[in-house]
């Protein structure tokens, strides 16, 4: 099947400082892709750049194709149709994405009028259907309420309703549940997966939470310092991570059951994007780093079907994980 969206060699730089470097990603129709990484790894910037949402001082290079149409450098009018239409986005802080002085009806109807060209009673009926769909009780009456009259979880549901207004083929969810309590996070994630199944919508789930990504995505890409370092089907990545950074992230997560073990923390901190080490950006923190790691940044290379890793020590790393002594 032809991919829905293809990102090729995407680069983003602010004031000459590269923050995203050589990112390749592709998403099929209806697929859920998780993007994990720590703050500053470039996971949000990648998609903001792809949709032309970065400020003018950002230098974006490479190619982003939606159904074969190039998005980078596309005319503003075309991007306006795509954003909120075929591709929708929701963010961590839904309250700041809504206008506090307009009713939910006004804001939902605006999105519907723009992207679906509905008007009159049809638009009101559709707004109500969307609120019902995202599980806001008493939707008909709640349409005339203002954002502050809803709880944090409900506001995120409303944002999801607005995102669905344009019948998108792709939803970019950027840390959609990070600001929510655990039981509400579970509700929102369940809602997203139900909607995704029913509308066969593709989703990119950007999160720092490995658990959230593992449970809700088919495939996961791990980002570190502006690059993708490993890409794999979700179950394989968590059972058998190959890149030392991916292994480190999973080892750093305290277990919820079984015996307690000392956490395997990754030493040091993420490098400053203005002072990136030459070669592999993870090498200074990597226990397996050897001399070639400092010379050249490794490229993402396939190691199995559906799996790719950017690490020259991938073989050694895999052995270390499986407990096989290197010969």
């Amino acid at each position: 099947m032809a991919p829905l969206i293809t990102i090729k060699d995407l680069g983003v730089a602010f004031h000459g400082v590269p923050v995203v470097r050589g990112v390749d990603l592709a998403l099929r129709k209806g697929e859920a892709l998780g993007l994990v990484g720590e703050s500053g790894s470039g996971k949000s910037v990648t998609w903001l750049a792809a949709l032309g949402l970065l400020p003018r001082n950002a230098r974006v290079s490479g190619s982003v194709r939606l159904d074969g149409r190039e998005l980078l450098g596309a005319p503003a009018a075309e991007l306006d149709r795509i954003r909120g239409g075929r591709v929708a986005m929701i963010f961590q802080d839904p309250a700041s994405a809504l206008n506090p002085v307009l009713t939910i009806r006004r804001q939902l109807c605006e999105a519907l009028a723009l992207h679906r060209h509905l008007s009159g009673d049809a638009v009101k009926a559709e707004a109500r259907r969307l609120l019902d769909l995202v599980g806001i009780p008493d939707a008909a009456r709640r349409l005339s309420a203002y954002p502050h009259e809803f709880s944090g979880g409900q506001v995120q549901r409303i944002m999801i309703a607005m995102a669905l207004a344009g019948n998108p083929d792709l939803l970019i969810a950027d840390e959609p549940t990070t600001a929510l309590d655990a039981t509400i996070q579970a509700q929102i994630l369940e809602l997203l997966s139900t909607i995704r199944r029913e509308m066969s919508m593709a989703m990119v789930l950007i999160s720092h939470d490995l658990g959230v990504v593992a449970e809700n995505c088919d495939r996961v890409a791990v980002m570190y310092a502006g690059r993708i370092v490993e890409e794999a089907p979700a179950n394989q990545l968590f059972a058998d991570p190959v890149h030392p950074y991916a292994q480190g992230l999973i080892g750093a997560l305290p277990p919820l059951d079984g015996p307690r073990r000392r956490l395997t923390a990754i030493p040091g901190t993420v490098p400053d994007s203005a002072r990136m080490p030459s070669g592999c950006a993870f090498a200074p923190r990597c226990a397996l780093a050897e001399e070639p790691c400092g010379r050249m940044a490794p490229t993402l290379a396939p190691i199995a079907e559906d799996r790719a890793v950017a690490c020259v020590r991938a073989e050694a790393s895999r052995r270390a994980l499986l407990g096989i002594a290197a010969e």
Partner: protein
Amino acid sequence: MSGPLVEVSSISRSYSMRSGMFGRSTAVHAVDRVSLTMRKGETLGLVGESGSGKSTTGRIVLGLEPPDHGEVRFDGKPMATPGTPAWRAQRAHMQMIFQDPLGALDRRLPVAAQIREPLDIHGLGTPLEREERVRELLRAVELTPAHGVRYPGALSGGQRQRIVLARALATKPDFLVCDEPVSALDVSIQAQVVNLLADLQAQLALTLLFISHDLRVVRQISNVVAVMYLGRIVEIGSADDLFARPEHPYTQALVSASPAPGRRSAGRIVLAGDPPNPAARPQGCAFHPRCPRAVARCASEVPALSHVGGNRQVACHLVTGPQAETRDAA
């Protein structure tokens, strides 16, 4: 582990809140009859969602605000009145760490000077000894004297939290309240700080009250865990056992809501309804409107925290009431 260092008996705290400028003021029971015992060298984890009263509990335990009812005893003695010399002397033995290290540090002062400040305030040691103690503290949190001359802005989030920790340890406290100390940190850095905290606790025989919404982190560091919901403790027990076999329906939902790599979300308990509003506390068991197993009695009668075997206590009619017995018999 020995006798209790901190004993909290039935503390309550309510605030009055107005809805709108002219609305009637209503009492919000942030903390309602909470009792806790922390033994020397032990870590008690306090978990709950926002508005559950876990931070207020921490503040009352430290004497940062007085309880309306109830009492906190530290090392056998009641907490002194805040502001008095006796209170200050007592406070040197207990410290607090918050979520946001940048907010807890002065941006215009090198961090070493900030670590030294409590030593100056409490008049501990000669100036030379204080300098040496600052170096020792920096080493204890795995930083170097070179970090000490920097300003908070020049340090990473994890390093700042280490500085806050070093400062909290300056007066050699016996008791530390940590309120979401690693929640703002990335996973790999969070693991560093959690390991450090566990090491320091073992070395210094610290007693910790560890407040967090993150069940994984709490389990990693705690001996005993208490779960709060709308100002009350609904379940308390030893950490491993509590997470392996939660009894209270709310604890069960919390444990089930915690996503785990390698597990699909099948069989997850997803609670209906919104997070609780402390200003509109439901009658009876506060959890009953969201509880998948609630019965008529839950809406009218407040369940008491009762022992259910081992060191577990649960506040739920279904676990401790007659229904529980019939359920077991069936």
